[in-house]
């Protein structure tokens, strides 16, 4: 395989310290140091961002630092998690390919690794480790809200292919991605969890339309997809037909692990908005001319504390998951904290910005006001905070599950949202 032609996995296994030295040297020579508060793949024209990610992933691959915990036979380095963590620590503050780290390498990848046939694994895993192909999730639906298993998108068997019809939403960068894991209903006569199938779907494909969704803050990273008799070969089924929920459950587990910072497959420590947020808040406080006001100072101190505790909680949850002190769903603690912390941060920023958040000279301004209008996105994307609270109470504290009216009912008989919900309310 061509993939093995790059830097071979170090055998016999290199000592962690030696590895650390090698990483440090390579990072310094091959990656770009970020400006304070700068994010990975700095937002610009989207084209740049996606292709930038591909370049960076390729660079990691050539350096022998791509897919560190992936098996060597699929182009990975076959090393244990400690090595990835060493890389993460040493590369902190440098630019890395966010779009590959999540969801490609840490969510879609591990799911394929678990459920893929040998052919599927050989075909897809090396390609994304190399940075050739970017993946995305087709899970949420316009009518579905938090109820992933209530998918209405249907895949109808027709000989050795399936015909895909319906729509998905909230896929990130789908219009720049190559493949998607798509959950669709293949059986309507059984309860909802037992009639689903997971498909590997080429994003740019006849019968698939991808639209970007304009958000309140003007960004258009999220997409919605419409499927109109899109032809998907039966070979593209991941796992078993009608057993898609098993696959989806693991995919969601990997998502929580990635978000919770406990996945061995994420690459690098995401530069945290909080850092940016932090310097930003202090600049705002100074700009406001009220830096001496104890209320202003108190709000900055509050944001500081919230930010510090967030890092500490992430570390604790990661440790707890690794040591087995915490069950898998503990990732939801991090998710809930992240949502509420961001709400606090944005609200404080609005307060500190004063008039500048409401009116501004020139075309560019009001950032804090616009962030405030977009605020709740932090409590919705990647599983709502409501779902996180359900998971924490039911699966960490063991409290009774919410009554679900669709349990054990053939899905076709379940009361569900008929009208598309993507409508204005005015």
């Amino acid at each position, binding site marked *: 395989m061509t993939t093995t032609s790059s830097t071979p996995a170090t055998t016999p296994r290199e000592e962690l310290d030696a590895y650390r030295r090698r990483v440090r040297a390579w990072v310094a020579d091959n990656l770009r140091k970020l400006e304070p508060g700068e994010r990975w793949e700095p937002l610009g024209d989207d084209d740049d961002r996606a292709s930038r990610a591909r370049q960076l992933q390729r660079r990691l691959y050539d350096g022998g630092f791509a897919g560190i915990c992936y098996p060597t036979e699929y182009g990975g380095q076959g090393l244990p998690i400690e090595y990835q963590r060493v890389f993460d620590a040493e590369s902190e503050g440098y630019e890395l390919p966010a779009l590959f780290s999540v969801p490609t390498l840490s969510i879609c990848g591990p799911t394929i690794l678990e459920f893929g046939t040998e052919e599927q694994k050989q075909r897809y895993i090396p390609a994304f480790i190399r940075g050739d192909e970017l993946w995305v999730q087709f899970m949420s639906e316009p009518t579905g809200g938090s109820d992933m298993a209530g998918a209405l998108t249907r895949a109808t068997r027709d000989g050795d292919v399936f015909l895909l019809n319906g729509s998905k939403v909230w896929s990130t960068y789908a219009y720049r991605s190559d493949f998607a894991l798509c959950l669709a209903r293949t059986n309507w006569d059984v309860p909802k969890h037992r009639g689903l199938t997971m498909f590997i779907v080429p994003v740019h494909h006849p019968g698939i339309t991808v639209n970007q969704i304009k958000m*309140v803050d003007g960004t258009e990273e999220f997409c919605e997809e419409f499927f109109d008799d899109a032809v998907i070969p039966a070979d593209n089924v991941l796992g078993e037909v009608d057993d898609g929920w098993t696959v989806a459950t693991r995919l969601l587990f990997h998502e929580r692990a990635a978000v919770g910072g406990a996945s061995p497959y994420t690459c690098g420590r995401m530069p945290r908005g909080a850092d940016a947020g932090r310097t930003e808040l202090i600049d705002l406080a100074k700009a406001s001319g009220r830096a001496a006001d104890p209320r202003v100072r108190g709000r900055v101190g509050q944001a500081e504390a919230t930010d510090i505790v967030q890092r500490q909680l992430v570390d604790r949850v990661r440790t707890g998951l690794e040591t087995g002190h915490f069950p898998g769903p503990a990732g939801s603690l991090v998710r809930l904290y992240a949502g509420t912390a961001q709400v606090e941060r944005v609200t404080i920023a609005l307060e500190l910005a004063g008039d500048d958040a409401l009116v501004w000279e020139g075309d560019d301004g009001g950032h804090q006001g616009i962030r*405030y209008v977009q605020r709740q996105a932090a409590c919705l994307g990647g599983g709502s905070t409501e779902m996180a609270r359900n998971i924490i109470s039911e699966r960490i504290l063991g409290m009774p599950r919410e009554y*679900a*009216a669709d*349990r054990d009912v053939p899905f076709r008989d379940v009361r569900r949202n008929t*009208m598309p*919900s993507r409508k*204005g309310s005015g």
Partner: protein
Amino acid sequence: MDLTLNGDQSFFQETTRRFLESEAPLTRVRELADDPNGFDRAWWRRGAELGWTALVVPEDHGGGTLSGRPCADLAIVAEEFGRLVSPGPLIPTNVVAATVARSGTPEQRAEVLPAILAGEAVAAWCVKGPDRGWLAGDLGVEARRDGDGGFVVAGTATMVEAAGSADWFLVSARSADGPVQVLLRGDTPGIRVTRLGGLDLVRRFGKVHFDDVAAPGAAVVGGGPGDGAADDVGRQLRLGAALEVAQMAGVADRVLELTVEYAFDRYSFGRPLASYQALKHRFADMKLWLEASHATVEGATRAVDDDVDVERLVSAAKVYVGDHVPELVQDCVQIHGGIGVTWEHDIHLYLRRVTLGRGLYGTPDEHRERLAVAAGL
């Protein structure tokens, strides 16, 4: 909504609502987002015919109230504006009209009020200096005496609503003898307006620069510097704040209404959202915030009309509504889920309106401070 509207008021509310629904639906509001002035003059004239600019003007100047309580009457319009995030210079024009009617010279009244009543003239109020608070009383514009009762006005006022389309500016300025107000034509030499971008889709603001503008004695409102002018400025602030919170309550009313409907219609796991207790309890809190907001808006508008304990009651309303209504709308966004943060969904129009309203005429922090002072601290 005020629970004790009289027949005239209810009829007025009805006609205003129907007019806004047909002549300024949200689709129209979205179109106006690209209009430099954010509203259509002809449309504004029709609103004026309904009485939007007449309520704070006494009958002998061609105006008239419905209930003897001009602020309470006007709050009805403001609330309807909130329900449909309506365009138009409702608040500044009325704030200026009220002062001209109360303290203007006969000439000023004769010249300005008929045009405002007819919806022909738009008025804006210049009070807030850049990097200054609303309530601190440190005005951004300075007025220097200039012989026979006139002044030279210099400085900059910001957050001036409708500055870009104003035919008249009421300028609150500081002078050696205390605050003074002058009424100037929009095209007075030396007045420069910088149009500002803003969070609200249709309410427009500007910075107004005064480069040594000559304001003759005839332009002075309320008989020159001193307590009279200071009192007028205070009344203007309180009227503006009372109308702003009325508008915010209207937003809360409409958004909660929409979100309750949504919770009944929307099914999750085979159950309507409205059946989930965690959401039901949040709806209960929001219903409380809404009713308490209506209660304090009513208290504030009546206090403005009766001029009794008015500073405390207006500040209490600005604190309560400013703290709760934006959070109410945010939680409604949350309940709507992802679509709630898309441009296509209308709820962000409402969130923009109340985020703006929270800051105008004094933030909750500024009004808390004012309440502490009033409490003797």
